[in-house]
């Protein structure tokens, strides 16, 4: 909680304008928006928790459960879709036995579909913990997962 407290303290004079930046900072800090953090932000800005939750669920960026150790984002841009991003989704769902938007039970992997990452020349693109990997094929996928595990 200390990280969240710091963020709240830093924004002690914030208005509603800063709601989204505060939530983003919290997500950067702990990886997701926990129940306590939403309540704390509500207290800070004098807003009902339901409103904040409503806002956070509206946007794609926010997560409400802890992310895995390896957070995998699959680009669903147009070019990536044409180059077969859907089979990547299938692959990951089968491999880790989870659905999009979930985290595996052991907390190792989580899967997210994101709109275009803007790297269309190397589609299909995935991002593991923020590092982008391009030109994914069935052959080099395992290699990339290993590489991600090393870094």
């Amino acid at each position, binding site marked *: 909680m200390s990280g969240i407290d710091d963020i709240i303290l830093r924004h002690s004079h914030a208005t509603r304008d800063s709601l989204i930046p505060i939530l983003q900072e919290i997500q950067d800090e702990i990886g997701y928006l926990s129940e306590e953090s939403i309540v704390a932000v509500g207290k800070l800005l004098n807003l009902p928790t339901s409103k904040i939750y409503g806002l956070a669920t509206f946007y794609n960026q926010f997560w409400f459960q802890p992310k895995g150790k390896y957070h995998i984002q699959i680009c669903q841009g147009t070019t990536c879709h044409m180059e077969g991003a859907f089979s990547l989704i299938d692959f990951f769902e089968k491999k880790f036995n989870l659905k999009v938007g979930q985290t595996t039970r052991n907390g190792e992997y989580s899967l997210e579909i994101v709109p275009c990452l*803007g790297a269309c020349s*190397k589609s299909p693109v995935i991002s593991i913990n923020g590092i982008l990997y391009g030109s994914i094929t069935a052959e080099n996928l395992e290699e990339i997962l290993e590489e991600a595990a090393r870094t």
Partner: protein
Amino acid sequence: MEKIHGSDQILLHHVLSKTSDEQKHITEEKISMLRRQTVSKPIIYIGSTTSSHVAGSKKTLKAVEEYRQEMNVDLEIIEVGSIGLCSLEPIMDVQLPGRCRVSFQKVTGDVVATILDGVLNNFLPSEFALAQYRNPLHQPWFNVPFFDDLPFFKHQHRLLLENCGLINPESIEDYIAWGGYKAFANVISNYTHEEVCDAIDKSGLRGRGGGGFPTGKKWKETLSIAANQKYFICNADESDPGAFMERVLMESDPHLIIEGIAISSYAVGANKAIIYTRNRYALTVIRLEKAIQQAYDLGLLGFNIFDSGFNLDISIRKGPGAYVCGEETALIKSIEGKRGMPNYKPPFPSTKGLHGKPTVVNNVETIANVPHIINNGFEWFNTIGTKQSKGTKLFSVSGKVNRVCLLEVPFGTPLSKLVELAGGVPEGQKLKAVQIGGPSGECIIPEDLQTPIDFESFKNKGLAMGAGGVIVYDDTVCIIDMVKYFMNFIKHESCGKCIPCREGSQRMLDILTAISSRPANSDGHGSLERFKGVILLESMAEVMRDTSLCGLGQTASNPLISALKHFKNEFEEHIFERKCVAGVCRNLRIYYIDVEKCTGCAACAKRCPTNAIIGTPRSPYFVVEEKCIGCGICEEVCKFSSVFFK
């Protein structure tokens, strides 16, 4: 301003055109050094943007650093932006003293040593060479084309992209050396607010976000309203899937955007400006933040800029990801810390926007034009483009093309040129259609590609320009699959305010899914029902277009309607013959077993969920077509790749 000393002072004087006679020599020398006209040691430039990072430019950079250390050579390494040739990345340039700066393509980490070994010893590894920059002061390399001779660059009109890939985006000095911030200094010391608005109005600059609204008019409206606070918002929320023009522009030349914002804010009398960009564009945010900080440090932003009495603060907002926030009223709501749902217009944001104050929302590309117009005059800008659409337009071309790239062409260029410059479709394939404007644009068939790019001619043809994302389809693309993809996107991104958009997109997706999947029973009635669905699609699209509040809902059915118009037979094939010629719709596939390759291991027969595969072990198996549901498990388990689909 008192705090600024030394070389910064020289640059500032240069910006303000106040260079004294004794300073002139030093200034010229500094500018020439920053422009790298004369270099004392070899310089390595490495293209560094999000897409080149994916291609491996970070490894290239590391390899160059290692090379420098290992060989103990004196090299300067500079990270630059992208020249627009995304498919050829990572791109590395080398400039030797006295020689032309030469570019190498596809320089992955492992070939760095080979290239540098060659170039540093005056031998050019021609297999990697791309082109060289023309410079009369430098000796050119033999047998390497110049950039302006390459067809890709020859047919472009690079105005906004002029500096992209050439200068260091993280250095304000580079930008100033190439003429940056001169327009802003000129405006702030010699122009009134009205004069700037007038200049932009006369230039005929129109909004590049898709609407094509005259920018000057918008500004004048805001300027004419008395208010104690006005805002300027730069819309950099590029969430159109397949579009990356703005990202490349912001990553390669962030100071151009900052300068554009500064001039625009001055023009409308706003002293608070906000850049609303995407949270996912991490590098973009970093570079913009750096650029803003540098501008503050040099006194180009902040309080009482150049003693003119004009204050300006620029801040960055990271959009948390919602396509609808590209719409100006939704964007403003998002900045206010609310759900990004569009509002009814009027009142337009130019009269009542952020916190109820007059607010101008402009697209990044529009803003990037402003410094150029001020520098060169509106008469000059009027000479580029067509009668009603002036200037140039950025396009990102991706999809089934040989060269995924970023292009800048003047208005009036035919659409076919874009495909041509992108290297056409892969060999052996045929161009099927071009989708312009992403999920809210139409697909255009090859016969219509002669249409000039221009707001008016697009309007006459019933097309939408969109932001500039161009997706090329070839024969391997199923049009129904793409329409379904876009509809799924709209369904996901619809804010939910208007029922026609929220529910309509869901129902349309349902109908499209029904078309592209195998029916439970194969009687004719089912086909008829699905056909009825397609007819319903058309009327539903009309309702959505007429009754939705914002552009997202109004244009959501564009891809569908245009596809229905041009590719009716493909829809019919899906409905009646249950066949997807391109083989993309997985549920419509029927699998077959190659008799030659099958060894009769029975692996597929064991796994088939509908027992559609029959045969005897150790002799080729056979798929019963009627029973096959196209799940593809047999293809997955076959070790001899004998399973294929039609």
